[in-house]
């Protein structure tokens, strides 16, 4: 499928990466991937595409972005679901999630950030300071958002290292908040028009909206198959699909995910699965899981359960809701975009009863035996909201295991024991 002898070092040097450190990173990630992914049995054949993407995540994909820029396009980095990809694409941009998910250059990051900063923020800062994220180094602009205090303040520091633009995300969903958010969408358009040198037009926005919706629809199809017993795909593989959605070329990704969905639908109709039909079924909810963070799923699935759903930013929050495609004017389309994005249920909102409803609905639709609430340590919003999620889930009859963790491996044995004991409870 690929010429693995391609050497990208010249490209990485031109992007300004720290080559020796980056080489170390590129040694570490395949080892993690091997241990978590390639040891699985009965994977869908279509996952070969994701194996390929992972092998080229800092290579071919970056080459595509560099070529895209050379052809006059932009690359816009984001950290969060609330930044509308439709607008970025309509203005000739490629939207990429920036690197996090591993403890990298924490020594550098902790010169700027307190030790008790959540792993996502510390990791993203470490990747930037350590100059090992080619996505961050290719980005013409990083678009941040005010989802939490940690990110808000970290963007001020990140702004010293890269061009950063921050959207104000309200934290309630009243009419005034919606008006504020709609105005923020207009301000983002203006900023991206300035960076790209283009003007937003209706045709491009219409196309972009359809393409991004198609991506979400493909992920919806893939994830719908997981309601079957036995589950036709592991939770780890399904998680990876959403993680890669943040980086990959949109139409190509959509095509590949639809192909996997075809395969999974066939598996379901033939009664084939990746786990025994009586394996405990688990829904994971909580904070986002960026590549290469697979620890929670890996522990759960190696203990004998199968993860059948993720109520995560790298899960249902990413693909469940679509933008209304019916408006034809730019303003109408932006209204629809504003409405869809503000409808995502992140713990940064108060109140956030919609998330509890989402968890219970997924638990019911996916026929789960238990729920694992996994938060990053020091993420106040999710760690505190866990109490409400746990209470509602238990009232609805679902056992809940709460995990507070980070990107390190130091708690793997302890978490393994807790997860195994939780699965024993479900029997």
């Amino acid at each position, binding site marked *: 499928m690929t010429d693995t002898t391609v050497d990208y070092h010249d490209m990485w040097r031109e992007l300004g990466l720290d080559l020796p450190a980056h080489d170390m990173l590129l040694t570490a990630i395949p080892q993690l991937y091997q241990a978590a992914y390639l040891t699985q049995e009965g994977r869908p054949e279509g996952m070969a595409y994701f194996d390929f993407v992972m092998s080229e995540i800092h290579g071919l994909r970056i080459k595509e972005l560099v070529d895209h820029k050379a052809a006059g396009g932009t690359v816009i980095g984001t950290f969060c679901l609330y930044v509308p990809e439709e607008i970025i694409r309509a203005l000739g941009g490629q939207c990429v999630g920036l690197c996090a998910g591993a403890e990298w250059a924490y020594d550098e990051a902790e010169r700027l950030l307190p030790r008790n900063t959540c792993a996502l923020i510390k990791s993203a800062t470490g990747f930037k300071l350590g100059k090992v994220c080619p996505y961050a180094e290719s980005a013409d602009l990083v678009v941040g958002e005010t989802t939490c205090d940690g990110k808000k303040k970290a963007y001020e520091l990140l702004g010293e290292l890269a061009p950063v633009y921050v959207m104000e995300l309200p934290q309630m969903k009243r009419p005034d908040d919606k008006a504020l958010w709609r105005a923020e969408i207009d301000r983002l358009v203006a900023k991206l028009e300035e960076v790209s040198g283009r003007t937003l037009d209706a045709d491009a926005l219409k196309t972009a909206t359809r393409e991004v919706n198609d991506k979400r629809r493909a992920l919806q199809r893939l994830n719908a198959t997981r309601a079957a017993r036995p589950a036709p795909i592991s939770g780890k593989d399904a998680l990876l699909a959403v993680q890669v959605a943040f980086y990959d070329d949109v139409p190509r990704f959509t095509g590949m995910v639809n192909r996997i969905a075809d395969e999974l639908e066939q598996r379901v109709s033939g009664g084939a699965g990746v786990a025994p039909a009586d394996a405990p079924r688990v829904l994971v909810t909580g904070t986002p899981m960026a590549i290469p963070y697979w620890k929670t799923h890996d522990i759960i699935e*190696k*203990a*004998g359960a199968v993860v059948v759903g993720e109520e995560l930013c790298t899960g249902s929050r990413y693909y469940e809701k679509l933008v209304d495609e019916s408006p034809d004017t730019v303003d109408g389309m932006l209204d629809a975009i504003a409405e869809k994005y503000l409808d995502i249920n992140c713990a940064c909102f108060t109140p956030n009863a919609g998330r509890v409803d989402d968890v219970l609905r997924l638990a019911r639709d996916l026929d789960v035996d238990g729920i694992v609430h996994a938060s990053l340590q020091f993420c106040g919003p999710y760690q505190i909201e866990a109490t409400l999620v746990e209470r509602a889930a238990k009232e609805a009859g679902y056992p809940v295991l709460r995990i*507070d*963790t980070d990107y390190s491996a*130091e*708690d793997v*044995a*302890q*978490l393994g*024991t*807790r997860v*195994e*004991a939780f*699965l*024993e*409870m479900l*029997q």
Partner: protein
Amino acid sequence: MANDVLTVLGLDIGSRTVDAVWLRSGAGSGETADGRPLLKGSPAGAVDGGAVIDSAVLDSGFDPQEAAARLVARGAQDIVVATGYGRRAAAERFGAAVITEIKAYALGAGQLCPEARAVLDMGGQDTKAIALASDGGVDDFEMNDRCAAGTGRFLEVMAAALGLDIDTLGRAALRADGAAQVSSMCTVFAESEVVGLLHRGESRERVALGLHEAIARRTVAMLKRVGARGPLLFAGGVARNPAMRRLVEEGYDGSVLVVAEPQLVGAHGAALHGLTGGRGRARGGRA
């Protein structure tokens, strides 16, 4: 197998000790090998589900699997069921079935102390609070995640800082006329704090009591978080510490029960799992 006599070795492979209980199917005796009842005050013969034919406690040393191997070599068991940190390695090495410590303690409690509705296990490197469902299964549990604060190992380090033996630490605390305030629960910081308190003239007894009180507060809070109610079985090696027993009794809203050999409850539960049809069932394990 239903009518055959089955002998099961339950192994609890922990960070500080490897504990073994051999159970044989048939009428239960509820006694230890030398004839003492496992549960204080319970008459011999009160316990169903297998007779204890032997038990042992070995130091884990630097190679717990080697200690486990010595125990496996010693008995004439038909099957081995392992729990504790070394359970997965034991599954590979001895073909053992595996269950978690949480389940093992719940099973052990169900037999050794049927009236228990909750279990507190304070072992070498972790503490577990388990609320039991009415059928004896696990209703909810909590364990310390990543640090040894408030565990047996913590007490060992503090005993050393006080120049005391781990077996005399609890008695020293009970002799104190009051407690010195110990605020740190990190093993490393608490050790420095203990040394500082001694330098300021606090007695070893008062410091020892302060340490026990601090741990007991955390432990009772953990029991509350899992919703523990009703009689509590206090198990694990730390249950042998008289000061910790008294403080848990004072803090817990319910009776606190301790069996004669509290560190064997997990191994007993593992063996029971084997007797009651756990053979070859290692779901939940990586074996």
